[in-house]
């Protein structure tokens, strides 16, 4: 872990956090008229994956995709414009928050059905194998997607064909309001399930961004060396409600105490304290970075808000190629 990477990881996490939190602040204005699934508290995996992957590698994701998109380098004004339903949105206003795409940085798409892009990512991996490139296809999903049939089918095929695919599972313990314990048998680890399917797997603390980065970088190196698909599970925790800008610990599906305990483990403060303590970063550097992110975010929101809506006639465009 070089100091540069350690610092970059912190900065990337802070940027994702700030933009997500700004969405939550502005959401009540009723101008972002689509569901949003914020990743506040889960920034480490997004930040680390974006840094560990090359721009030529591909990534796909699901409904909670803002972090993955931003981590991979996706265009932020276009993401926000998409949430505002604007013509300048990354999907022309047709998709909203759950349908993000920026092919210029290899973010090939996120979709809204849990598990839906897992085989798509495997297919991207198949295309790399057919064309003989050394690219990697990274698939982001959560603990809920592990329960879909298509997860098993996709992992199985990736293992059979030894495809260059990185499966990244962020286990945040909840699918909407349903806790893991009512969805998966107690004591069965997701990463061990992956191993049993035939995909090399490991598990790590998703709040330790340096560990996450190291594990991702190692897995990516193994894939490029021809070792076939790799699976990584990271423990993480969703701060805000499943869908929307608020906190929802009062509605009874989890306790305030559980939330506070998990929030205390959060990745950004941990990394920032560590770097300050080791004198690898100064408070002035942090303040300067925060300021630049604030300026970038404000400009991105301004772009999104000021962009025009698509024409009504656009509804009938692009049904067929």
């Amino acid at each position: 872990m070089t100091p540069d990477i350690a610092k970059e990881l912190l900065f990337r996490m802070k940027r994702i956090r700030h933009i997500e939190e700004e969405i939550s602040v502005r959401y009540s204005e009723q101008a972002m008229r689509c569901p949003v699934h914020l990743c506040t508290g889960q920034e480490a995996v997004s930040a680390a994956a974006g840094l560990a992957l090359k721009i030529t590698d591909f990534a796909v994701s699901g409904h909670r995709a803002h972090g993955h998109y931003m981590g991979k380098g996706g265009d932020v004004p276009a993401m926000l414009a998409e949430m505002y339903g604007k013509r300048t949105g990354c999907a022309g206003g047709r998709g909203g928050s759950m349908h993000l795409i920026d092919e210029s940085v290899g973010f090939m798409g996120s979709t809204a059905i849990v598990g839906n892009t897992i085989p798509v990512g495997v297919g991207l991996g198949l295309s790399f194998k057919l064309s003989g490139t050394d690219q990697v296809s990274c698939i982001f999903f959560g603990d809920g997607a592990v329960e879909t049939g298509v997860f098993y089918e996709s992992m199985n095929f990736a293992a059979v064909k030894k495809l260059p695919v990185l499966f990244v599972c962020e286990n945040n313990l909840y699918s909407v309001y349903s806790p893991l314990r009512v969805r998966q048998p107690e004591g069965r680890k997701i990463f061990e399930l992956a191993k049993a399917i035939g995909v090399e797997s490991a598990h790590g603390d998703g709040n330790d961004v340096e560990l996450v980065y190291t594990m991702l970088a190692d897995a990516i190196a193994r894939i490029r060396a021809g070792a076939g698909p790799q699976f990584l599970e990271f423990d993480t925790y969703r701060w805000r409600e499943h869908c929307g800008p608020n906190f929802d610990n009062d509605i009874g599906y989890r306790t305030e105490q559980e939330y506070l305990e998990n929030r205390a483990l959060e990745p950004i403060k941990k990394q920032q304290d560590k770097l300050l303590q080791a004198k690898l970063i100064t408070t002035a550097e942090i303040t300067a970075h925060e300021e630049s992110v604030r300026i970038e975010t404000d400009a991105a929101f301004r772009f999104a808000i000021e962009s025009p809506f698509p024409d009504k006639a656009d509804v009938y465009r692009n049904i067929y190629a």
Partner: protein
Amino acid sequence: MPDSTPHPTRQLTFSTAINEALNIAMQTDDKVICYGLGTDDPKGNFGTTLGLQEKFGPQRVFDMPLSENAMTGVAIGASLNGIRPVMCHQRFDFFLLAMDQLVNGAAKWFYMFDGQRSVPITIRLVIGRGWGQGPTHSQNLQAWFAHIPGLKVVMPTSPADAKGMLLSSIFDPNPVVFIEHRWLHNMVGDVPEGDVRTPIGPLRIARSGSDVTIVSMSYMTVEALHAADYLQKRGISCDILDLRCVNPIDWPAIFSSVQKTGKLLALDSGAETGSIAGEVVARVAMNCMSSLTAAPARLAMPDVPEPTSFGMTKGFYVRASDVAVKILDMLGLEHGDVHEQLIEPTPHDVPGSWFTGPF
């Protein structure tokens, strides 16, 4: 690439024509791949994929796990990066496991990402009837797919169209569901040599006539032709429009025929309610009311699952005699010797003596 010079034709079966189209597509473009359950097995998907793996190698032609949903998503993903996958399913019914990837993925990708990337995949499905295929091996659910914006749905009848439309499907930039009727696989017809593509869209006039318009698809066109042969002897001429694809549908050609004949019989190989035939009747009623001289009619399968038993399927399918009787009724004519001339073949549950099972 296809060319416009005249191509000599030969007599080929429908399944050989499919095989030839796959060979030409894979020869033409090394981005075309072909996979499905048993694609490389000794039966070769009713003969349609025989020899492909030997010729193009196991990287491009391969068997797959029994994972219809994921393997459809794999096709989508590969197609996003330049590959043109052809998936082959031995039964339409097996593919029902893949609805998420087809409906939420393939059909939507181009639209929901505002035209940034299309999904050029071809999905071959086999429909059928008879030989005890029963409730879950014989469904004709083409209307489901025709209902979904973003998909094209192709249903050829002739061997020439089987080849020409499969080539068009593979090189179409959109997801195409390509539906083959099992009872057509051994039908023989003239097929042009070379890369001759039949466009997806225009229907085929299978027979010209002036008294009644029959709109049909896939195997039902064969029954319509038998009925028309009989009716011709009684001085009634049928305009038989073989749709060839059910999304898009060639409405101008249908309307123009009905304006000529004043009568419409729509045939469908699927269940009656919500059928393509129902859509044809509706649109003709809305657009050609002043031309109609009789109420439009349709013949489709009853709204029940297909039973398996030989005893239960006798008289169950829509046959040429049903088509002829319906048309005689529309014209106010006596049935005459229709039932003697158009008897249900024996046995009734196979397309011909070539078919001896097991699937």
